[in-house]
């Protein structure tokens, strides 16, 4: 299956991926209205130790620890192999947050879990972070 891969040698730490992700998942068509005066909580976060920078998002693991940990069945794999979240089923226990080795899933201010779903749950269709990265540091491909 196609997944998001990060090439840290090209990441410039510009954080555009974060804003594009927030826009993609906002449900609002106009980017200004989607982002203006809003505090964003995107599914991808740019991390840096001062020397290396790269964007972290859900790895859609072959054997997802989060799905095993989920007590309410809110997390599941779809037919393509992507790990999807059904927020209506989530009870906000935070088990998935604790077991994810990448820190890629979080509890949002709504109290339920959220993470990257490869833009399959919004109108973009294909991951917007990969499309908008200015330097090819995020790619969406089959390996």
């Amino acid at each position, binding site marked *: 299956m196609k997944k998001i891969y990060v090439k840290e*040698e*090209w990441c*410039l*730490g*510009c*954080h*555009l991926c*974060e*804003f*594009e992700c927030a*826009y993609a998942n906002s449900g609002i068509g106009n*980017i*200004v209205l989607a*982002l*203006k*005066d*809003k505090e964003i909580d995107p599914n991808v976060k740019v991390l840096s130790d001062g020397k290396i920078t790269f964007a972290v998002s859900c790895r859609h693991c072959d054997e997802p620890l989060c799905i095993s940990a989920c007590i309410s069945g809110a997390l599941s794999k779809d037919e393509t192999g992507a790990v999807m979240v059904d927020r209506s089923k989530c009870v906000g226990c935070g088990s998935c947050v604790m077991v994810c080795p990448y820190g890629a899933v979080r509890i949002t201010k709504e109290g339920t879990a959220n993470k990257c779903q490869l833009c399959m749950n919004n109108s973009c269709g294909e991951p917007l972070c990969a499309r*908008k990265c*200015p*330097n*090819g*540091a995020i790619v969406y491909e089959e390996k």
Partner: protein
Amino acid sequence: MIDYNVAPFEVVRDYDKCVNCRVCERQCSNEVHHYEEGFGKMISDSAKCVDCQRCVCLCPTKALKIVPNQNAFRPNANWQQKYLTEIYKQAESGGVLLSSMGNPEPFPVYFDKILINASQVTNPSIDPLREPMETRVFLGAKPQTIERDAEGKIVTKLPPRLKLSMPVMFSAMSYGSISYNAHAALARAAEALGIYYNTGEGGLHKDFYKYSANTIVQVASGRFGVHKDYLEDGAAIEIKIGQGAKPGIGGHLPGAKIVGDVSKTRMIPEGSDAVSPAPHHDIYSIEDLRQLVYSIKEATEYKKPVIVKIAAVHNVAAIASGIARSGADIIAIDGFRGGTGAAPTRIRDNVGIPIELALGSVDERLREENIRDNVSLVVAGSIRSSADVVKAICLGADAVYIGSASLVAMGCHLCRTCNYGKCNWGIATQRPDLVKRLNPDIAAERLINMLTAWNHEIQEMMGGMGINSIEALRGNRLMLRGVGLNERELAVLGIKHAGEV
């Protein structure tokens, strides 16, 4: 102290659209933008802006634009504002003004006054989508006599040459003036396209030896990076006598850019200014040039063509005639619009002549002396589009070099501040955090795309003229007409005026 500096540009931010994502702040090496925490908004210091357009391109909501600073001195057709600000700078610093990239002054651009023909009725145009349309070019000297073996078959031995899939090559830009990643992109694109790129006078980084089949190595007056393996590794060797942006003087790379691999590749100490001597100190006459050409041929066993690159100056036709008799295989002529990493402003803007006129006169002169077959002609300075390529070939060139156009394809916006070494596009810089911005995979693909597109356009224009092999376009001046040119200009170019049959 009075600050006489007038910021040339003003950053205009549409605050209704700005979402404080801070990309502009993170991506500006000139520190123009910053987020003012207390006020919750972005502030821009226009005085530092060089109009590189990086922030404008990256802003996700397109909230930014850079405009000329409307603050104007009293209009004066003679004392234009730039002459005043340049004097203020010199009064303050006592230094020679330095500039980057090609001459921006409003001298005539002859390519924009030349029109191309098309065939109708008496001679059909050819459809490049459905018929062969050939743009393959060979560069090198033609043999004087045809030899045959005992059975009467032609002996197909040819002098060393370069084979190009299309009549365009990447011009010399040194490693040091541009980044490692830029060189990687140029080398890869040259290989993929079946053309050549040029090392410039910075030597050849060992990581790029694998592209030797598509590399032209340059020997400039400073001889930076020149050693035996370097010469062996090129497909051709170019002796750089001059370049269009700064005829009469040598290359200049400030010590700040001579770091790490740049210093190793050039074979000079880190931090030392690399100022190439004005002449080659072993070429003071045409006979000296002949000696150097043959020394290089001896050193490479006569297997590689030798190119001599000169700037277009007033007596360029006579110089070219001398070079054509010196044993060189290819003459490269760089016109006064040629680009550079750094050159004294006055020399860049006032010295040299347009490549169109130089080409017109050199091609004609070599034919008058019956030595046009001794060399191929490559021209540069500045070729901006496929139409310029076609016009140059009609005037008599075998191929062109593109320098600035290649950089633009890779992201350059011609802000002309390369000499500061803070190129926001990762092209004209050695700072690792900035070099990172030029991903060679992306840049190589852009170069390949641009030249693929140009090749198709050249084929369309050729087909329109009823020509299906590019050699029939070379020197075919009847395919051009001038518009708005006077008698002398038409005579030097060797073309008629539009409307004349």
